[in-house]
C-alpha cells in the first residue's frame, strides 16, 4: 500500500498549487486526478490572468486579490503567462455612468488603469470596432492553463511530489473521526487500491460536493457552466474586456496562435456537463460583435465548455450572483479530522488559495516552514545556450514555444531525440508547429495514456485542421514507438477524433464544415476508420 502524509484531490490549478506548496514545505504529498491533469475547469476557461478590473466594482476584495496575484504570477510564471496587457473598452451599447464608477473602484484597490484615445486603441488593435467609445489599458495577461498546471507539477515533482492521473476517489477511510487513508480506482485498469495518509485536501472544484459526500459531508458547490469559442487566429494582440458590469461574452483573450471569446453562465446539475451547443455559440457571437464587428468573418476552431465551482453557504445563490471568492472548509467542524475542502475561487488566485490551505494543513502537521510559492519561479528560465541550441533543431516559430512547454529538461530530451534521428524534426502537427520528437517525448511520459493526453501537453491537434492531419500521424508515431497504451490503434483514432468532434459540432458551418468534410474524407473514406472498428463499438 502506498503511504503519504497528504493526499490532494484534483489535478486542476488549485490542486497542483497545493501539491507544489506542500512539497516545497517538505510535506510528502500525492495528487490524484480522475482524468488527465488540467482536464477540468483549469483548461476550460478563457485563460485570462485577471488584473482585477472585472471584479473591482462589485467585489473589491476579489479585485484586490487578483491584482496582487496577477503581479506575482507574471513574475514566477513567465513561461506560462503571456504579458499581453489588456483593454477595457466601453461600446456604444454600454452605460457611460458605469465607467466612472469602474475607474474609481480600480483606483481604490490598486489596479492601474490608463485611459487612451479610441484612435490610439484602434491603431494598436485595428480589428476593434471603430464604434467603441472609450478605452483603458490594464495589466491583464494571458495564462495558459495546461502549461501552468504542468509547470506546477514539474516544480512539485522536483520536491518529491507524486501525481496519479486517471485515478478516481471511491472512498475516504477514517478511524475515530480521523482520516487514515483513501480508497482509489484506476479508471483505465479498474484496479482498486488504498493509500494511507494523515490528511486529505479536496481541491476537486466542481466535483468537491461529490468528494465530500463520500465522507457523508455536505458541501454545496453549484457547477456553473461557461461556454467559450476558440478562433483560428489572433484577432487581437491584447486582451479586450467589455467595460460594463460583468456579463456574458465580455472577454477576448489572445493565446499563442488563437483567440478565445467567453463566456456564458448557466447553472447546471452535473460538474461534467461540458458539451457546448450552437445556441450558446450564436449568443456569444452576437454579444462579441459589439467589440469586434467582423467577428463572423473570423473562423472558429471549436467551442468548449467548463463548469465554474461556485460555492455558497446559501444554497440558493447561483451564477454571477454567487461570490467568486474562495472558502476553505475544515471538516473537523463536521466531525471528521484531517479533511479539508477548498471551494469557489478563480484561476487567477489559485496560488493564494493554495497558500491558505497549505498554511492550515501545516498548522495541523506542525510544519513551520513558510510558504515560498510567491517568490520561487515555477520553472527556471531556459539558458541562452540551450535556447540557441534549440533553434538549431526546431523549425521557425517553434523553439520558444517548445521551450515554454517542455522546460529545460524536456527540451534537452527532445533535442536529443532529434540529434539521434534528424527526421524527427519534421512537424507532426503543422498548424501548431509541434515536431514528431516532441510528440514522442510527450507520449512516453508516465501520465500519457491516450492521444488527448499528448495533445494537452503539446497543443498538437488544437490548431486550424483540428486533427485532420495530426491524428493519423500521431497514432502512427505511438504505434511505431511500441508504447504500452498504443496497442489498439482504432481506439486511439476514435478517442482523439471524437474529442475534436465534441467542440466542432456546435460550430459546424462555413469553413469549419469544409474542414470537417476533409477530415471525414480522410478518416471515413481513405482510412475507413468506422469500417475497421468492431461492430460492437459505436
Amino acid at each position: 500500500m502506498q503511504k503519504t502524509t497528504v493526499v490532494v484531490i484534483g489535478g486542476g490549478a488549485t490542486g497542483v498549487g497545493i501539491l507544489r506548496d506542500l512539497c516545497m514545505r517538505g510535506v510528502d504529498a500525492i495528487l490524484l486526478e480522475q482524468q488527465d491533469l488540467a482536464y477540468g475547469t483549469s483548461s476550460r476557461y478563457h485563460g485570462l490572468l485577471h488584473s482585477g478590473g472585472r471584479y473591482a466594482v462589485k467585489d473589491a476584495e476579489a479585485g484586490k486579490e487578483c491584482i496582487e496575484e496577477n503581479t506575482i504570477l507574471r513574475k514566477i510564471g513567465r513561461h506560462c503567462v503571456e504579458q499581453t496587457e489588456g483593454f477595457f473598452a466601453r461600446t456604444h451599447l454600454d452605460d457611460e455612468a458605469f465607467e466612472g464608477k469602474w475607474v474609481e473602484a480600480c483606483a481604490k484597490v490598486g489596479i492601474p488603469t490608463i485611459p487612451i484615445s479610441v484612435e490610439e486603441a484602434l491603431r494598436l488593435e485595428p480589428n476593434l470596432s471603430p464604434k467603441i467609445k472609450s478605452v483603458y489599458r490594464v495589466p491583464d495577461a494571458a495564462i495558459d492553463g495546461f502549461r501552468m498546471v504542468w509547470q506546477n507539477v514539474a516544480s512539485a515533482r522536483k520536491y518529491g511530489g507524486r501525481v496519479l492521473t486517471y485515478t478516481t476517489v471511491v472512498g475516504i477511510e477514517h478511524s475515530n473521526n480521523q482520516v487514515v487513508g483513501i480508497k482509489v480506482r484506476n479508471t483505465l485498469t479498474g484496479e482498486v487500491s488504498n493509500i494511507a495518509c494523515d490528511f486529505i485536501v479536496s481541491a476537486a472544484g466542481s466535483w468537491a460536493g461529490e468528494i465530500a459526500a463520500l465522507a457523508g459531508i455536505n458541501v454545496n458547490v453549484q457547477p456553473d457552466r461557461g461556454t467559450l469559442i476558440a478562433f483560428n487566429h489572433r484577432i487581437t494582440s491584447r486582451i479586450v474586456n467589455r467595460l460594463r458590469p460583468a456579463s456574458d461574452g465580455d472577454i477576448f483573450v489572445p493565446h499563442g496562435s488563437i483567440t478565445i471569446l467567453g463566456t456564458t453562465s448557466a447553472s447546471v446539475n452535473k460538474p461534467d456537463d461540458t458539451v457546448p451547443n450552437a445556441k450558446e455559440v450564436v449568443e456569444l457571437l452576437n454579444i462579441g460583435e459589439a467589440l469586434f464587428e467582423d467577428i463572423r468573418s473570423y473562423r472558429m476552431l471549436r467551442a468548449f465548455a467548463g463548469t465554474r465551482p461556485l460555492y455558497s453557504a446559501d444554497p440558493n445563490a447561483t451564477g454571477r450572483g454567487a461570490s467568486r471568492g474562495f472558502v476553505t472548509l475544515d471538516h473537523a467542524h463536521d466531525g471528521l479530522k484531517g479533511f479539508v475542502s477548498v471551494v469557489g475561487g478563480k484561476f487567477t488566485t489559485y496560488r493564494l488559495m493554495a497558500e491558505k490551505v497549505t498554511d492550515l494543513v501545516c498548522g495541523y502537521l506542525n510544519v513551520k516552514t513558510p510558504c515560498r510559492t510567491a517568490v520561487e519561479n515555477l520553472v527556471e528560465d531556459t539558458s541562452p545556450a540551450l535556447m540557441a541550441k534549440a533553434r538549431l533543431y526546431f523549425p521557425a516559430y517553434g523553439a520558444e514555444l517548445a521551450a515554454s512547454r517542455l522546460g529545460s529538461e524536456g527540451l534537452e530530451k527532445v533535442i536529443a531525440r532529434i540529434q539521434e534521428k534528424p527526421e524527427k524534426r519534421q512537424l507532426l502537427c503543422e498548424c501548431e508547429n509541434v515536431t514528431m520528437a516532441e510528440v514522442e517525448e510527450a507520449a512516453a511520459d508516465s501520465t500519457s495514456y491516450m492521444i488527448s493526453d499528448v495533445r494537452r501537453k503539446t497543443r498538437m491537434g488544437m490548431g486550424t485542421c483540428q486533427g485532420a492531419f495530426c491524428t493519423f500521424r500521431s497514432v502512427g508515431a505511438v504505434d511505431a514507438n511500441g508504447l504500452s497504451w498504443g496497442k489498439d490503434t482504432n481506439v486511439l483514432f476514435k478517442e482523439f477524433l471524437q474529442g475534436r468532434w465534441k467542440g466542432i459540432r456546435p460550430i459546424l458551418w462555413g469553413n469549419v464544415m469544409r474542414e470537417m468534410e476533409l477530415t471525414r474524407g480522410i478518416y471515413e473514406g481513405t482510412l475507413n476508420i468506422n469500417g475497421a472498428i468492431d461492430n460492437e463499438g459505436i
Partner: protein
Amino acid sequence: MKKHHNNPDSCTACTVCIANCPVTAATRKFRGPKMVGPTLERMRLSQDDIEPSLEYCSNCKNCDMSCPSGVPISTLNMLARAKYFKNRKRSLRDWILSHGEKMAKLSAATPGMANFGMKMSRGILKKIGISDKAPLPAYASKSFSKLFKNLKQTSYPDKVVFYPGCFINYNDPQVGMDFVAVMQANKLEVIVEEGFVCCGSPLVVNGFLDEAEENAKQNVQILKKWTDKGYPIITCCTSCGLMLKQEYQELFHIEGVAEYAKHLYDADEFLLDLHDQGRLNTNFGTLNEKYMYHAPCHLRAQGMGLPGVELLALIPGLDVQDADAGCCGISGNYGFKDDKYDISMEIGSGLFKTIKESGRDTVVSECGTCRLQIGHGANVKTLHPLTLVRKSYEAYHK
C-alpha cells in the same frame, strides 16, 4: 472584410497548394506554400521569428490558383517578406533586380555601353549574387516610349490606353510596336501615358513593398483617370496585368482599383473580345508555320483561359501547340539569382523537355521573362503572340 491584416482563416490545410507548387517539387529548401503562407501567418501574428524558407517562394501563384478556398497564399508570403525586410538591410543584388526601371533609366543614355558593360561585368554580378548563367535581358537601343513618340499613328475615334511596362519599354520594345500596329489594323488609336511607372511586381517579390505601394498609387491614379473617361487599358505583359488588376487589391488599400480593374485587359483577351463582338479585323493572311505555346503562370492566375492560343487559332495555316508543361521557373527575377538559378532551371526542365521533343524551334508566350528563360533553357527562339498577329495582317496585304 479584409481590414488591416490578411486573414488566414479560409485555409483548411488541405495541402493541394503543396501538390501544385513548382518550387516545392524542385527543392526541399522550401517548406511549401501552406506552411510558409497561411499556417505560419497564424504564428507571425503571435510572435517574431524568421522562417528561412520564405525567400524560396517565387510568387508564381500556382498555389493561389490551386487553392479551393481562395486563400491568397503567395500574397501572404510577399507580405511576410516585406515585414521581414522592414528593419533589415537589403542586398545590392535584390536592389538591382527590383529596380529595373531605375537601372534602365540610368543606362538609357547609352544602352550600347550598358549592354557591353553588363557582358563584361557578369563576373562582378556573380559576386553580388546574380547568376552568371541566367538569361539577363539586354537593353534595347531605343526604348518603346522613344519609338512610339516617333511613330505616326492614324487617328481614330476609338482609343485604347497602353500600359507597356518595363520589359517592353526597355528590353523588348518591338512587342509594343507590334501591339500598336495590331491596334491600328483594328481602327484603334493607342494612347501611351508618360506618367506610368513600374507596376511594382519586381519590387514586391524582393520585399520593397513601400516603394511598390508608391508606384501603385501613381499608376492607380492614372489608370482610374482613363477608365473613368471610358477608355480600356491594355497590357501585353501578364505580370504587369496581374499586378495592376489583382495584386494591388490584395497588397494595398488603395481606392479605385476594383473599378478600373474591370476595364483592364490583356492584349490577346481584348482582341478576342473584339472578335466576340464581331469587331475584330479578321483579314488574316496565311502563315504556314509551326510553334509551341507556353502559358505564363501569371496569365493562368488571371483566370481568363488561354486567349493567346484562341487568338492564334484564327490565323489560317498557323499550327500552335500548347506545351501545357507548367511553370518555366524564371518567375520574374527569381531565376536570375545565383542561389535560385538551379531551382529555376529544375522547375523549367519539364517544359524545356516538352519543347525540345516537339521539334519546333520557336515558342510563343505572352510573358517577357518566360520567353528569356525558355530561350535559355530550351535553346529556341521566342515570340509574343501579337508579333504573329501583326505578321498575319501584313501577310494579308502581300
